Structure formats: C-alpha cells, structure tokens
C-alpha cells in the first residue's frame, strides 16, 4: 500500500476540520501486478507536435526558463502562519503536490508531450481518452505547451467498466505562452469502484488564458488538485467544475490560483450535487502575491445536499499580500430552492421531475459548450442514469 499525502492546503488551519491535507492510499498490487496503460490518443491535429515518453529531465528542461522567471518574480515568498511548503521542490507546482510526482517517478511513468506550433490558431482539438478495464489500469502524465500567440483545446475523458476495481491516475502540467489560450477539458465518468486521481498544474504568461473545465461524475474515491500560476501580467484563469457524488463515493478537491502578474484575473465556479452517503471536501484558494496589483479573484461554490447522510466540507481561502486587489468568495450550501420547485410544479411538472431538471441544469451549464457532441451525449446519458 502506498500512502500519499495530497491536496494540502497552502496554509494549515484548525486540525479538527480535517481539511489540511488528505491521505491517498493506493494498493500497490493494483499498479505493480497488473498492467497499466497510458492514455489513448484518439485524435491529434497535424499541426500539433506530440512526443511520447519524454523523461523527467526533459520536463525540467522545458520548464527551466519558466521557473527562472518565477524565481525572478520571487513568487515563492514565504507565506506566514505555518504554510505547507513541501511542494516547493516540484518542477511544476500542482494541486495534489509532490507525492504524486514521486509516485509517477517510482513507477517510471514518462510524460506525453503535446506542443502546439507557434501562432497555432486551428480549432481542431486534441482528443485523449483513458479507459480502465480488465486489460489494465491507467497511469498517465502529459505536458501541454501552448507557445506564444497560439490557442489549443485538449479534451480528455476517463471511463471504466462498472464494478472495475482499478485505478485511473492522471497528471497534467501545462504552460500557456504570451497572448495564448489553453482550453483544457476533463470529464471523469468512471465506474463506482474505480479509484481516481487527477493532478493538474501550470503557468500562464503575459496575456495568456487557461480555461479549465471539469466534470466529475463517478469513481469510488476521486482526488483532484489544480494549481494555476498566473505569472504574466494580464494573465487569466477560468475554472468551471461540475460534479455529482452519490452512493458511498468520495470526492476531494484542492484548487489553488496564485496571482503574480499585474492585472491578473481568476474566475472560478464550482457547482455540484451530493446524494446518498456522499462525502466531499473542497478547498479553494486565491493567493494574491506581492506585485499582483490591480488583480481580481473571484470564486463561487454552489453545492446541493440532497440526502440526510451526506458530508460536505469546504474551505474557501483568500491569501493577500498586495494592496490593490479585489478578491471575492461566495458559497451557498443547501437544498433546492423551494420557491423554484413550487413554480415548476405550477407549470405541470411533478416535484421529482422538477428536482431532476434543476440538478441537470446545474451540470448542463458547464457541459453544454464542450466542443465534442458525442462526449456531451455520453455525459447526459450518465447523468440520466444517476438521476
């Protein structure tokens, strides 16, 4: 059994809340004695360079200049009050942290490099798919590079057979160059016996934008960590997350947005539903570093609790060492609006139908503009089955 410490808060808080970090236990036999596969490349546009199995040294080289720039900006300034600084040795800081890097290194898993050409503006998307089944678990790492003045969309979906007791572990690291845009879409539709982790981290340069869209519907235990470093001036991150957790499933999130450049903007929306005996931990941090003047950070969490037995833990953090910023967090946690349900019933729907429609609307608002109709259909079917 490998025990990894993941999803650490950037600053520690009251231990009784059980949110400082999470333990991720991976049964060694699931990754040693059975096969594990890399993510499958379903479609790779010709204009996008793709190199399989690059080494960690190579990743270090790719990020060397970027990390030099980060050091120059002195963004690794010490956060007071017992911060978690363990992650500072990572090549690219990620939401789940250094234990995931070490786990992949131990398993000798190399990375898939996906690199758009400079000035690449094609709308054709990179399409990756991970399926865990009797032929193996999935352990996969990717490095996505979007050079200056380019845009790239990468869509990844994760599935597994129902009742398949396995692992889908993913690590995605990215760099978005000047005046560039990365749209990263991940949909997790795993069976309810599969263990899942998804570790994301990247850096956005001047006028760059990363849009991260994520759907989490499935998996027995899912751990997700995202760390966006808005290094460049006017850089921007947009996070849109939709999730449904049911049965005895557990979902553990850690989102961190570090704002370094001037005039940066982070905007995040998290919408989800907890059913049955579901447990969810959500950590969201906006970190305004010194020098991030005129930056804006906004995060909104909206959670529906639809069973008496659910457990929901949330910690929305704002860290700030810059005067001229504007940070905001809002959270609503509770039941479906009775007024809305009543209104819909007056329009001829049963209470159950109305409830279902409202839940679907929450996830649909995040799913609807995914540029892959087939995948949207699959998500809708999965939603229908759950509800």
């Amino acid at each position, binding site marked *: 059994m490998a025990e990894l410490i993941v999803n650490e808060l950037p600053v520690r808080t009251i*231990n009784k809340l059980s949110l400082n970090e999470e333990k991720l236990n991976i049964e060694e036999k699931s990754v040693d004695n059975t096969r594990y596969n890399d993510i499958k490349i379903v479609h790779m546009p010709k204009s996008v360079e793709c190199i399989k199995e690059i080494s960690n040294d190579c990743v270090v080289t790719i990020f060397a200049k970027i990390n030099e720039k980060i050091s120059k900006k002195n963004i690794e300034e010490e956060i007071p*009050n017992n911060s978690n600084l363990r992650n500072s040795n990572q090549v690219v800081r990620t939401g789940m942290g250094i234990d995931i890097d070490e786990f992949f290194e131990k398993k000798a898993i190399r990375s898939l490099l996906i690199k758009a050409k400079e000035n690449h503006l094609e709308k054709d998307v990179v399409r990756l798919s991970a399926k865990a089944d009797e032929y193996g678990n999935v352990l996969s790492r990717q490095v996505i590079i979007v050079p200056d003045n380019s845009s790239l969309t990468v869509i990844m979906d994760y599935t597994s057979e129902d009742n398949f007791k396995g692992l889908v572990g993913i690590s995605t690291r990215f760099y978005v160059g000047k005046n560039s845009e990365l749209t990263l879409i991940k949909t997790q539709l795993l069976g309810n016996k599969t263990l899942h982790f998804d570790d994301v981290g990247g850096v956005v340069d001047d006028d760059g934008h990363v849009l991260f869209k994520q759907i989490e519907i499935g998996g027995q235990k899912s751990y997700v960590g995202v760390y966006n470093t808005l290094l460049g001036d006017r850089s921007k991150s947009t996070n849109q997350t939709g999730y449904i957790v049911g049965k005895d499933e557990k979902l553990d999130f850690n989102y961190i947005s570090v704002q370094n450049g001037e005039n940066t903007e982070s905007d995040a929306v998290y919408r989800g539903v907890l059913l049955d005996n579901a447990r969810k931990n959500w950590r969201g941090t906006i970190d305004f570093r010194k020098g991030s003047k005129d930056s804006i950070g906004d995060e909104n969490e909206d959670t529906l609790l639809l069973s*008496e037995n659910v457990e929901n833990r949330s910690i929305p953090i*704002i860290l*700030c060492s810059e005067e001229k910023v504007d940070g905001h967090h*809002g959270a609503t946690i*509770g039941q479906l609006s009775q007024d809305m349900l009543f209104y819909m019933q007056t329009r001829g729907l049963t209470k159950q139908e109305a409830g279902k429609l409202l839940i679907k609307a929450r996830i649909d608002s995040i799913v609807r503009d995914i540029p892959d109709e087939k995948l949207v259909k699959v998500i809708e079917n999965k939603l229908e089955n759950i509800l």
Partner: protein
Amino acid sequence: MLDELKESLRDYEANSLYDFKDEENETNFYREKEGLTRDIVEKISREKEDPDWMREFRLKCLDIYNEMNMPNWGPSIEGLDIDKISSYVRSKSDMKNRWEDVPDDIKNTFEKLGIPEAERKSLAGVGAQYDSELVYHNIKDEVARQGVIYTDFESALKGEYADMVKEHFMKLVPPTNHKFAALHGAVWSGGSFVYVPKNVKVEIPLQSYFRLNAAGAGQFEHTLIIVDEGADLHFIEGCSAPKYNVANLHAGCVELFVGKNAKLRYSTIENWSKNMYNLNTKRARVEEGGRMEWVSGSFGSHVSYLYPMTILKGDNSSMEYTGITFSGKGQNLDTGAKVLHIGEGSSSIINTKSISKDGGIGTFRSSVTVMPSARKSKVSVSCDSLMLDSISRSDTIPGMDIRTNDSDIGHEAKIGKISDEAIFYLMSKGISEEDARAMIVSGFANSVSKELPLEYAVEMNNLIKLEMSGNM
C-alpha cells in the same frame, strides 16, 4: 471636527493612554519565579488555598501541558519561552470593594484607564484585575438585590457557589483542548464568576478589566458566567498592558453557559501591548431558545490566537459574532470564530472586519460545523478585509463542515483596498488624504462600533484613529 479629532489624538498621545507602567518591587508585590514546574504549580495552589480537587486538577493539567504539542497551524509563537514567564505576580494588598482602599499606584492605573468613572456612569458592577489577582470587585446594590452574583473567582471557588463552580469549571474548555488550555488549567489565577438567576434581566452591563503590569509575566484569569433560564446579561471585558521588550503571555479562559431562552452579550475591547502573546480561549454553550452575542475588537498583542466558540446545543438557539481586528506594525493577529450547531433550528451569524497596515498580518479564521441533528439550521458568514498598504498581509481561512442536507449555509468573503474615488471625493471637500483614509476606515468598522455601548464605541474609534496615525 477634524481639528477636534487631531486635538483628541494629541491628548491620547500625551497621556499615553495604555502604555504607562508602575514600578513593582518586592515590598509591594509577590512574584513567582519564571518557568513552569510541579513545584511552581503546587506553590500557586498553596498560595491561593485551593480546595484539594483544584490542586489535583492543576497538577493533571500540568501533565497534559507537558504531553501536548504546540499548534501546527497559525502564527509563530517561537518568541514565547515559557521558562522566561512568571505565571504568578500579585500585589501584597488584598482585594477591595472600595476604590479608596486600593493602593494608590494601582488605583491610579485604573483611573487613567477610566474604570472607576465608567463604573459610576454606566456599569452594574466592576472587577479589576492587576497582574494575577483581582484588586477591586464591586456590584451595585440594586443588582445584587436581584440575586445576581458577581464575584472574584477565588471567592466563588470556596463560597456558597463552590459546587456550581466545580460542576462547570473547565468543562466547556477541557485542558485537553489545546496546549495553552492545559497551561491555563495548571496556573489559572483571578477572573470573575457571574451567576444571573432565572428570568433576571440585568439592565446595565457588568465589566471586568484585566491589566498586566509586570514585565515577563503571564495572566491566566478564568471567567465563568452562568445565565440561567430566561435571564439576560451584557458583560464587558477590557484588557491592556504597558509595552516591554520581553514577551508577555495571556492565556485566559472564558466559559459561558447560556440557559434556556436566556441571552448573553459578551463584549471585548482588547488592547494588549505589542509584546503580548494572546492565546486566549473563549467558549459558550447555548440551551434551547437561548442567544449568545459576541462583540470583539482586537487591536493589541504581538501575536493573537482568538476564536470564540459557540456550541448551539439547544433547539432554536442562536449566536451572532461581530468582530474587528486591526493589525499594525509587528503584529500577527489570527482571529475569528467557531460555531458548532447541534440543536434543530439553530442559527449563527459571523460578521467580521479586518484591517492590515504597516506590515501587520491579519488573518480571519473560522470553523462552522453543522451536525446531522441540526436540521433547519441557518449559517451566515461574512468577512471583509481591507489592505492599507502593500507591506501588510491579510488572509481569510474559513472552514465549514456540513453534515445535514436540511440547512442553509451562506458564506461571503471580500478583500480589497480603500477606493481611490472615495479618497478623491473626500479630498475634494477639503479633507487631507490622511484624514480621509481614517474616516473611511472608521466607516468600515462602523458595523462593529455600533454594537458597543457608547463609551466603548468611542474608545474603539480612538484606537482606530491612533492606529491610523501610527502612534501606538
């Protein structure tokens, strides 16, 4: 108006309102040696003529203290060396109930702090603690006639209410809660006991004031308030100390029991000196239909850990926490609130303001837990932070643990700067930039000051003005 404001600032500076000290020597003061050992704890216990159970309790707490680790979160307390802290310092004069009988030097201190005047004007009773012991305690006759008990803690421990004290002492804050709760259990001294009988409404507030005058000392007062069914009380706590170059420690403990349909308001203006480690623990338990209100202003201390906790045990019980923290140069103030919802239909409101300036670090930290039994409960948390420069720091760390679907939870946090437009507008009316900023900050703090009795709101506004002018 601005001239008056400047005038009052000058007055405050000239009088050094909080930062004045009296010489303490062996003739008029007893001082326990520095450090924390079994001998010292036993000596304090003997000195205070503790009942046996208390002596044993103190020693048990010492063991717990020695076993427990320092907190692994929050501001650094590396500068606090318990081996350099004297945990017991007292005047050789006994506690009095007439100011005329209090030794002159101590009386003058409280005169400067305005306590006797406040007692005459607007309080139902006053307790004044100087270092480790109370030097003055009094309650107005008409309030005493209502059956209200307001006494120093040592008297309560041995008097008519001894059983009640034993039943409640450190039951809400057990010594295992954290290392400094255990320390408090081992060396506590001073503090107040209040009992408000059933259906008695105390119309004007009671106040305890804690002054730590000695350098390199700790203050560990214990406040126990029991507000019985249907009763109503407003209790005010004030604290200050002169500044020294060595660390001082405050690890007090406040336990509040609010009965069925009773109401307690607990207001604090804390202005410890900036060499103080303020590691205070406050906790309230509220029964059915009861209401707990906290009003808290934190201005002083070098380091603070302060999160008053409310346990909403009874159905339809409620709490409201209104707090402001002003972190200036050399300060790391970690403040907030905790609430545990157990009762059905319980509700809580946490509303805080935080201001950071001149390199100060202000952290709002909270914990809201809603248990499965707390159906139909409501929670609203709102924290606003204001950064006044780029060398300061302001963090917001609110945690929530919700275990029932039948509750409404709302949380909102904002962080920002003073609007340039607002400053420009005020300056266009002939107000200097400095004054404009001070006025805006006072307005920002208004939601807290309006919750305080007038005299204390004035004191709080003066503290804000002093902080804004950087003269504290």
